[in-house]
């Protein structure tokens, strides 16, 4: 069985496992399920109301029955009701997800715009002072957590240049693109620069490997200019690991930008999850975590399939 087909077959199995994990995890919260569902508001219920709700939500049934009902609901887009927002969980997620998606896309663009040229430049001038400097910066960048970069950027801009990041009420891109980009530029720079360090390291290393290949040496010995060899022959092949890394990182950004959204007060999905945890809004925690895990898995699947398509060795080796 070829690698892409095997990967596609495993996907629903793992997705099912993820839904079981999330379902069981939420039911392990100390206290009864009504408390888990309603959070602090459950304290206002009388015993009769609590009993009625237990029957209404089917919580008197076995876990297997409950799981089946929950899963069929999820398949139809019913992720429950958020107690904090007073709205269906899915509509809360869909309201906040575009911001997280926009942040992930902008961060990725920043990372590639900084990381790729720097990595390629360093590789084509291996062991020069510029190469050393780029590698040192990349190592420091990779060792500095994104949220620390964010705090330091805010400090430098506000104390050093007197510019305060635009943190007020968030404006969606569709309403006012310029104002939206003004609000997003700093968080995107923060996440982007942190990720650029990894892009520099991987693109440099991939480029160095390719530049040592026989076909590159042959092209050079036949008189092809160095720049042409780099751009036409080496770069397309060196991009394969960068594409993979970018895809995996994009998946992380879709669910892992909690800290950056918190620092810059962006109402993205990461912040929704965090607030839901703090507010004990378990329906929202459950739904958002499932949604993020699903996105993360889809992105990883696409990356794996793209990698197999870009690099034929993956397909052959897996046979």
């Amino acid at each position, binding site marked *: 069985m070829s690698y892409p087909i095997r990967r596609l077959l*495993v996907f629903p*199995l*793992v*997705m099912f*496992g*993820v839904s*079981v*994990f*999330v379902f069981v*995890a*939420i039911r*392990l*919260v*100390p206290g009864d399920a009504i408390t888990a569902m309603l959070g602090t508001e459950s304290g206002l219920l009388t015993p009769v109301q609590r009993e009625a709700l237990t029957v209404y939500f089917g919580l008197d049934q076995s876990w297997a029955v409950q799981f089946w009902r929950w899963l069929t609901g999820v398949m139809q887009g019913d992720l429950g009701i958020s107690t904090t927002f007073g709205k269906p969980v899915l509509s809360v997620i869909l309201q906040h997800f575009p911001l997280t998606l926009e942040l992930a896309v902008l961060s990725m663009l920043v990372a590639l715009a900084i990381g790729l040229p720097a990595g390629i430049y360093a590789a084509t001038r291996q*062991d*020069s*002072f510029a190469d*050393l400097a780029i590698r040192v910066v990349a*190592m*420091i960048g*990779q*060792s*500095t*957590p994104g*949220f*620390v970069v964010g*705090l*330091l950027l*805010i*400090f430098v801009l*506000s*104390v050093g240049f007197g510019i305060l990041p635009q943190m007020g009420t968030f404006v969606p891109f569709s309403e006012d693109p310029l104002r939206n980009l003004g609000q997003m530029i700093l968080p995107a720079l923060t996440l982007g620069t942190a990720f650029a360090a990894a892009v520099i390291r991987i693109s440099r290393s991939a480029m160095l490997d390719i530049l040592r290949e026989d076909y590159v040496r042959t092209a050079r010995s036949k008189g092809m200019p160095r720049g042409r060899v780099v751009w036409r022959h080496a770069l397309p092949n060196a991009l394969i690991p960068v594409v993979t890394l970018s895809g995996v990182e994009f*998946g*992380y950004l*879709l*669910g*892992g930008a*909690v*800290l950056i959204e*918190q*620092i810059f007060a962006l109402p993205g999905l990461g912040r929704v*999850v*965090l607030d839901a*945890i*703090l507010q004990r809004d*378990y329906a929202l*925690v459950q739904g958002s*975590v499932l949604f*993020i*895990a699903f996105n*993360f*898995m889809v992105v*990883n699947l696409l990356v794996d399939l793209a990698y197999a398509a870009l690099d034929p060795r993956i397909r052959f080796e897996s046979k």
Partner: protein
Amino acid sequence: MPTQHLTHASGLNRNDPFAERCCATLFGLALVAAFTLAAVLAEFGLTPYDPLGQDRIARLQAPSVAHLFGTDLFGRDVLSRLMLGISQSFTVSFLAVGAASLVGTVLGLASAWFGGFWDGAIMRLMDVLLAFPAILLALLIIAIVGPSGLTSILAIAIVYTPIFTRVVRGPALSLKQREFVDAARTFGSSRRYIMTQHLALNLVAPLTVQITLALAWALVTEAGLSFLGLGTQPPYASLGLMLADARNLMELAPWLLWIPAIGLMFAVLGFNLLGDALRDILDPKTRRALA
């Protein structure tokens, strides 16, 4: 001798990857040693001041001879709190990575050795855990258990266990087919003996590299959780908590931000450099290239 190894025109042998790797390794080792020393001293209460002791008269003092890294909003000595924070962050990271590497190794070995159903079951469970971004899985676990330093250890351990399982399973599958394992079986060695003495001991090299790198990630995850208020709880200190406290005071007392930020960065850098160096030393291919 390759021309790369000839002395550079500037007098500096900039092309020598071995010398460069040595410098990076020594720097990484020095950083890890310095931070470990600070953590041990704090653990034994050997800090310049009481890290939790408040002094309202000495609030927000800039770095000086009396307080090398200044004081915070409650007049607490920042150097002492930094040492306590390093100790706390290191304790959480070491315990979490220790637990993850132990459980991951056992699961990886069992998966490779027993194969079939057990291999499928263990690896699919690991796939499920890997389907979550690390910080999200940690947040989910904290949502269930409640925020504390102990929960951080549990959360980080669960997040990193699948990575160790995968790191162990691959090479263990290959080792299982080797002649010396067949020979041990023929001589009647017990399953436990083969797994611990033949398989596990041969996996020390990749595990050491993975542990070192995982320590760097664990420090970042612990700091992130504490920054969000879901890890170490006040009045105790951790690097993430110190950064969270500094957020609203960065204009008034910038040292409160810079000191834990630089501390965290150098701690992670130390483990990253050490991990890279160990990988180069323990990987025969790169070892030959560097020789």
